[in-house]
């Protein structure tokens, strides 16, 4: 019993203490937030690219030092960004600046997007890289990114993968040698999202084509580019280890270890290749579907300003973006710290890794195909394309044509 008595007194005592502490603490918290609102107009940033969080915090600190405007960077994991953004916008605690991925997302959040068309610095955005909703400019590109076939120069001669037939026979030859000739991985975009771009993007007018698919004027199954794409996916399934057994980590790991000769990836993989300390040269080649000889280049994320805030905060947010893209310090952050390939003509690219260099060169020469997935129905890749691709890789008897039909059904389901 003695123990219990002590335990009890202890607990009551601490309880009493903490009630006091809680009240005290609570009061402080409240005052802090209110003060921040009254003094100077601070801004907050919420964005999905976790990889640049710390660098962005550093940029925010530098900005605050220069101008005295406090900038709060709100943290999140990559997974739940969209959902958290939605909740914050709904309860009017939204950030002043946030990131949006693409056109579909912008359409949905239209009422929160401030029209940036009138700002000076947006004039420097490279052609076609801005995010437009009709005639309103609502998103400033983070940077340019590109994907294609990332290959090991020791194992692959680019001439051998320059057209569709030789790509297929190269993959088959590698399979005979026990090497993975074409690595995909299980994440939604790395499994089907990015690679599914090609049959759309090599259409004469991809956006018009997608509209036709949505309206039912044309089906994927009757389009030759898609038939060929389905055929290629069969080649992948027959000649490579199941991509569902691979994660992004092991996909790149296999490549770095020389067990995989080619992977379908983008220039963002350069960072991970570094971590794996690759000891060979890598290159990026276009995916030669139906004679395509261009890399797919686009914008992965855009800065947007929350138009739901009061004008002072909106102005402060724009001022920050202006500083980031025009001042020497800001540009240095974009190029060196964030490691972006700038999508602004007034920003000089930094020292680039070979993959980013390939993307930059393609982008500068205009020899690119667009990222169609930015115009897919909202979330169709994780919601519907991925299950379709998964069942294709799990069921050996499903044909490429059936995969295409399932993608068609997925599209219809998402677009309704």
């Amino acid at each position, binding site marked *: *019993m003695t*123990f*219990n*008595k002590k*335990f*009890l007194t202890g*607990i*009551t005592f*601490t*309880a009493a203490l*903490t009630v006091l*502490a*809680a*009240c005290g*603490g*609570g*009061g402080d*918290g*409240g005052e*802090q*937030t209110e003060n921040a609102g009254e003094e100077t107009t601070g801004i*907050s940033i919420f964005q*999905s*690219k*976790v*990889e640049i*969080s*710390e660098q962005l915090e550093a940029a925010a600190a530098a900005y605050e030092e220069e101008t005295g405007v406090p900038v*709060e*960077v*709100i*943290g*999140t*994991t*990559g*997974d*739940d960004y969209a959902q*958290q953004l*939605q*909740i*914050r916008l*709904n*309860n*009017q*605690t939204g950030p002043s600046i946030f990131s949006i991925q693409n056109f579909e997302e912008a359409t949905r959040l239209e009422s929160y997007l401030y029209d940036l068309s009138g700002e000076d610095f947006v004039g420097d955005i490279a052609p076609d890289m801005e995010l437009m909703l009709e005639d309103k400019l609502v998103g400033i590109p983070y940077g340019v990114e590109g994907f294609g076939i990332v290959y090991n120069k020791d194992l692959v001669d680019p001439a051998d993968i320059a057209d569709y037939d030789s790509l297929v026979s190269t993959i088959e030859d590698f399979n005979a040698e026990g090497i993975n000739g074409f690595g995909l991985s299980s*994440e939604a*975009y*790395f499994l089907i999202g990015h690679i599914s771009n090609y049959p759309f993007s090599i259409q004469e007018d991809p956006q018009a084509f997608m509209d036709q698919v949505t309206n039912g004027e044309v089906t994927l199954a009757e389009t030759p580019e898609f038939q060929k794409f389905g055929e290629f996916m069969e080649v992948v399934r027959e000649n490579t280890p199941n991509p569902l057994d691979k*994660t*992004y*980590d*092991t996909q790149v*790991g296999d490549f*770095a*270890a020389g067990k995989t000769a080619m992977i379908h990836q983008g220039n*963002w993989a350069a960072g*991970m290749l570094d*971590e*794996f*300390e690759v000891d060979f040269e890598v290159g990026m080649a276009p995916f030669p579907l139906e004679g395509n000889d261009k890399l797919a280049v686009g914008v992965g994320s855009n800065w947007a300003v929350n138009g739901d805030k009061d004008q002072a905060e909106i102005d402060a947010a724009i001022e920050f973006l202006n500083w980031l893209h025009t001042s020497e310090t800001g540009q240095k952050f974009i190029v060196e710290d964030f490691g972006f390939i700038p999508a602004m003509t007034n920003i000089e690219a930094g020292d680039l890794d070979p993959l980013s260099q390939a993307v930059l060169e393609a982008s500068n020469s205009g020899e690119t195909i667009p990222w169609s997935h930015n115009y897919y129905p909202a979330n169709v890749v994780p919601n519907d394309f991925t299950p379709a691709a998964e069942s294709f890789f799990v069921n050996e008897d499903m044909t490429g044509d059936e995969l295409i039909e399932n993608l068609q059904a997925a599209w219809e389901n998402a677009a309704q």
Partner: protein
Amino acid sequence: MGILRKWSKEILLLAMAIVFLSPIYIIFVNSFKNRRELYENTLAPPTEFTLEFYEGAMARMDFFNAFLNSMYVTVVSVIFIVILSSMTAWMLARNANWISTVIFMTLIATMLIPFQTIMMPLMQLVTGITRSTGIPLYNSLSGLIFMNVGFNAALSVFLYHGFVKSIPISLEEAATIDGASKLGVFWRVVFPILTPITATVMILNVILIWNDFLLPSLTLIDKELRTIPLSVFYFFGEFTIEWNMAMAGLTLTIIPVVIFYMISQKYIIKGIGEGAVK
């Protein structure tokens, strides 16, 4: 026969314990490996025990600040939960009328609601209250504590309720005759007997609250307020995880809970001894 059976039991227990511990092993060894080493062999011990990733993780997480926040939130929440839910459970169990039944059933029914379906209305309500009354429910540790109490109340009342019944009512009656108030009866007679279940309630709540990510991530904005699970976010990228940092961070996160568990589980066991004496 006895000895053989006893030994086979010991061995079975040891085997199970090792199987159950294996993921902790995976977490621990991979907190020392770089990406290449992790890729080459996830299960092997690391080639060297470098503290590099621990130091890195601690610096990037602003560990001590986050630790204090987590500690404060967890301790205060759990104390409130224990006090309020044990009192409620005792009253509900000892007054078995229809109101008590309705309250009890409502409490436990809400344990079936997936958090994802109420988080949006909850955040609207909470920020609405903060905006209209100035009570800092949003973006403050006190507000987080308040919500923790609300969300974990049902589980705790449920746990207490079942065990209140196993306390002989005669003890309480004796104390009442001696002139003790309800409050006195509860704190001097009932609560001490509840010690084993209090320890259980504390353990389960400490873990839930200490590890919680979703609720704090929705309610806390200021960087200074981040709890430990929130500050680990840096390591979880869009497409990949910085395994070594994340595992180091995770190891640091679970150590305090393990210590707490080892200390408090004694009271679950100690409860027997005392129960037997009575």
